[in-house]
């Protein structure tokens, strides 16, 4: 059976070069980077090369990159490891963040911090003016993501940056964390230009291996480690380095940096083909999130969240799976309770749209022919299911 993988926001298939690098690192660089002998030094060099590559891909210094065990760990280190200072009591985030951010903020709340959650509009975008209004004298952290993982809304980081810079201009300390896990490798981003202090990325969303993430921390950002131990990663993330994973991450970072210019247009063309195809072929289908247009700044090039009213996303997912097309739903549906997607709910979508939502997420490894196939299969499957429920 033909297989078309369109769940790239969940995880991606590693580049062949990444697989090779991971294998080679396991075979050749099995030393512990902390060891004093040659084996250790070689492994340490492999980690250093990868750190350079990841730093280059973000346009930052290698010494500002901390490798972690996952994107979620990078986020937790940023949100919970940041020292609030004497006055810091208040944190601002958004309703459409990844659970890693929302739940880390929940833990801050348990520690006595106050959390303000900014609302979003009906396409999942934050209004920078809401941020202006939410900022307080005791606000020490703002955590706003770049690209939302469920609907692909691109937050207006430039405008948000302006708000944050103005607030800081009055001599106040304020740190900004950006969850860039979905944006990384798809949209260009230079943290120092926008005044971003902390930025989280993950290797396996960019065709790297699972189990590796990285946090960019601007010089002077007061972080405390979550994991205590031998003091690896400048004491911010102890534990023997995942040398093969990090080496694989380095290779993936090198490739995405090299292809950075072509990636977004290529992804966007595939997404447009998919969205136009499905909306034309399936009566009643609705695109959730920002419109799929090149001149729409909120439109991420790789994520298309589409609702099929009257069907359940989960059933459609399995039916597509039956024809070799892999997608995802916001969350598993249940006959007992209906949690649905917190993102779609924050956007104020009607129950039917929340229930019938499916996320297609594209990578540069997908082809136009695959998209055609996915459109055809989706149209066919929706038609069959509707017949059945008639």
């Amino acid at each position: 059976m033909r297989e078309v993988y369109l769940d790239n926001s969940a995880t991606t298939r590693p580049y062949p070069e990444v697989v090779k690098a991971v294998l080679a690192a396991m075979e050749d660089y099995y030393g512990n980077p902390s060891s004093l002998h040659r084996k250790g030094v070689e492994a340490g060099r492999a980690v250093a090369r990868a750190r350079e590559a990841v730093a280059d891909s973000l346009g930052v210094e290698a010494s500002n990159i901390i490798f972690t065990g996952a994107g979620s760990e990078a986020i937790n280190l940023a949100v919970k490891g940041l020292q609030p200072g004497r006055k810091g009591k208040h944190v601002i985030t958004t309703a459409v963040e990844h659970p890693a951010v929302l739940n880390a903020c929940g833990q801050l709340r348990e520690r006595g911090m106050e959390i303000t959650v900014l609302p979003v509009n009906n396409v999942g975008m934050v209004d920078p003016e809401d941020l202006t209004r939410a900022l307080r004298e005791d606000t020490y952290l703002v955590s706003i993501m770049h690209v939302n993982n469920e609907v692909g809304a691109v937050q207006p980081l430039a405008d948000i940056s302006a708000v944050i810079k103005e607030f800081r201009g009055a001599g106040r300390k304020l740190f900004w964390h950006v969850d860039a896990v979905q944006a990384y490798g798809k949209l260009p981003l230079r943290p120092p230009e926008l005044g971003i202090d902390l930025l989280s990325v993950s290797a396996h969303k960019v065709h790297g291996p699972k189990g590796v993430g990285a946090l960019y921390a601007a010089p002077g950002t007061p972080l405390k480690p979550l994991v205590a131990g031998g003091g690896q990663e400048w004491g911010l993330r102890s534990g023997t380095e995942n040398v093969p994973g990090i080496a694989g991450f380095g290779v993936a970072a090198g490739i995405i940096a090299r292809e950075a210019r072509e990636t977004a247009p290529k992804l966007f063309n595939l997404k447009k083909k998919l969205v136009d195809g499905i909306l034309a072929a399936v009566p009643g289908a609705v695109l959730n999130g920002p419109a799929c247009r090149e001149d729409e700044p909120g439109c991420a090039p790789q994520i298309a969240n589409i609702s099929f009213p009257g069907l359940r996303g989960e059933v459609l997912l399995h039916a597509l799976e039956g024809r070799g097309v892999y997608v995802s739903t916001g969350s598993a549906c249940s006959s007992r309770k209906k949690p649905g997607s917190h993102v779609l709910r924050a956007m104020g979508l009607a129950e039917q749209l929340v229930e019938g939502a499916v996320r297609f997420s594209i990578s540069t490894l997908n082809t136009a022919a695959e998209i055609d196939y996915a459109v055809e299969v989706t149209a066919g499957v929706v038609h069959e299911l509707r017949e059945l429920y008639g």
Partner: protein
Amino acid sequence: MYNTYLIRYGEIGLKGKNRPQFERRLMENMRRALGKTGPARVERVYGRLVVESEAEPALVLDRLSKVFGIVGVSPALRLPLDMQAVSGGALQTLKDAAALVQLPPGTPLTFKVEARRSNKMFPLTSPEINGQIGGYLLENFPGLQVDVHKPIIKVNVEIREKNAFVYAADIPGAGGLPVGASGKALLLLSGGIDSPVAGWMAMKRGIEIEAVHFYSFPFTGEKSLEKVRDLCRILADYTSRVKLHVVHFTEIQKEIQKNCPEELRVTLMRRMMFRLAERIAGQQGALALVTGESVGQVASQTLESMRVINYVINIPVLRPLVGMDKAEIISRAQAIGTFATSVLPYEDCCTLFLPKHPATRPRPEQARQAEEALEVEELLAGALDRTAVEIIKS
């Protein structure tokens, strides 16, 4: 540390001539349950079942708590034939047993010592042992009082040939009958809260369980099947393994959906499931079906529905939950350990196929007529053809 466990097994003692067979089954089940705890001996000594194991007592007791047929377990100390050692052991067992009882404030803890001496070479008689140890315990356990008629704790001392055994606590077991002692039945396992509990209750009565699950991809996915396997794994803890039959049910659902009146869909689906289950039971030598139905829970569980559904088969259907309320079923599921898995949010049966107003009082004639639109035999044969069997171990 406790290294000997005296097993009480009331009910199977009543089974007359079958007793040796029940005991063998129980011992076998105990050995299997203790398999992962390290070396353990399970023996019949002096008309009792005794487990000897050097493993951590909490672990042994946990494993034994999952063996049906055991009414109570007393962890015992095996000690040298020496009054000082026996007195010390008696004090320890008294303290441990006292920790298990809850007394209203102001109520004194009462006890008695009951010594039995089968080794007549031992220098003290049973009453002398009772006196010495009783005195020692009174001295060393503040607030303790003797009550020879109705003691809260009875400290047992057995003087045998080579060793003395001391025990006081009596920890309740799972009760019931040893699994396998009552033959085999086929459980209709959905993945919800009820059916695993029904399976557990059947097992408690000594029934060996095989499970059948009706899988309707794409309306349910691989994860929901994984959940059913997890439930089998939890049930297997009480018996060691469960054979799971996965029937691909989608075609039948689709045919019913297409050809039959909406309000009868659930009734007709259940009739097809019962027919399939009866056939699988026949192939596997299972003597009954077991379901998680409880009267009045949902539309398909009214007496009228049950009758119409039951109409198509001849094998007995056991419904152990019939007398239970939902709250009781849930608390039982929590105790067994299936609840957390059962409530994972994957569809157990596609609710999309559920009509808005299912018939709560279907008549057999209605169902029979509706089924005329279906190639029943062909559909059954097709589904049986697409049935896969898995062995799920604990």
